[in-house]
């Protein structure tokens, strides 16, 4: 198993996710955004949270055009697994690897809180460690987490089972009360059609140690190890 964490100027969750990946046996290495190519033999690429390029123009817009992203897109097209967390999700949308976009939260405030999420699909390498319908806790920290896609795209996402995580109540009900940012259909995380690219607003790396408030993020990394370590 070999993985990489891409570091953009302004990434700030790169070390956190690296530490968790290391502890989970994913054997990560850092890769600078300005590199032209990814290291050989990777199984997983992670785009970390943060404020790449100071959120200039749009969140993730500049990072999506960084030199390394051309190789990340090629890697994903060949079936390589790519995980984008928070700003990483925004970068995936801006790069075209995932449909839709993340807009300003509907209430305009920065969200920094614990959310409850319902796992909608567990048939990807990212989510096989969860049960379908399981309610988990993960924190969010974003001002632009309001997932938006047109009605046609949302229908396609639903039909293909690409909606992986939805904001829900502790009882697992998906409703406005549980929606922290106005996201279409309470969407917190989606995959591409082939299910090898996942973008999610909540931070699994921040709940990967019970001593730090929760461990519901651990199955995601453990699942990747189980599915990708050949």
């Amino acid at each position: 198993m070999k993985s990489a964490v891409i570091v953009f100027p302004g990434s700030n969750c790169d070390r956190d996710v690296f530490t968790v990946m290391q502890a989970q046996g994913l054997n990560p290495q850092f890769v600078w955004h300005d590199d032209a190519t990814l290291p050989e033999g990777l199984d997983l690429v992670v785009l970390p949270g943060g404020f790449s390029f100071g959120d200039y123009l749009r969140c993730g817009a500049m990072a999506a055009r960084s030199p390394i992203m051309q190789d990340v897109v090629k890697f994903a097209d060949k079936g390589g697994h790519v995980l984008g967390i928070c700003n990483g999700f925004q970068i995936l949308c801006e790069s075209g690897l995932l449909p839709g976009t993340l807009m300003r939260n509907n209430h305009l405030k920065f969200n920094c809180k614990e959310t409850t999420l319902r796992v909608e699909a567990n048939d990807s390498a990212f989510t096989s460690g969860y049960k379908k319908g399981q309610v988990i806790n993960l924190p969010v920290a974003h001002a632009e987490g309001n997932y938006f896609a047109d009605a046609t795209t949302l229908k396609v996402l639903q039909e293909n089972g690409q909606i992986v995580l939805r904001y829900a109540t502790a009882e697992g009900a998906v409703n406005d009360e549980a929606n922290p940012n106005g996201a279409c259909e309470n969407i917190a995380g989606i995959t591409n059609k082939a299910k090898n690219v996942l973008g999610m607003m909540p931070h699994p790396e921040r709940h990967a140690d019970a001593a730090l408030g929760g461990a519901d993020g651990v199955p995601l990394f453990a699942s990747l190890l189980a599915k990708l370590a050949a």
Partner: protein
Amino acid sequence: MKAKVHVTLKNGVLDPQGQAIESALDHLGFSGIIGSARVGKYIELDLIETNKDKAKAAVEQMCEKLLANTVVEKYSVELAD
């Protein structure tokens, strides 16, 4: 030659910033004058290219590739001396 690029949200896309501005203008006593407010971006480019057709086509490419996110935004390009 300059290119003046306006990037705005498509019709129908919720604009909470615009709504907040609208409500602040209401508080300032402008209610009854404005219907609604929408927030966008203005980008000014200094161009070296002197052929207007070529310049316009290139700036439109820039909008498609970077300046606008066409999932939710539309753009307009105006060339000026």
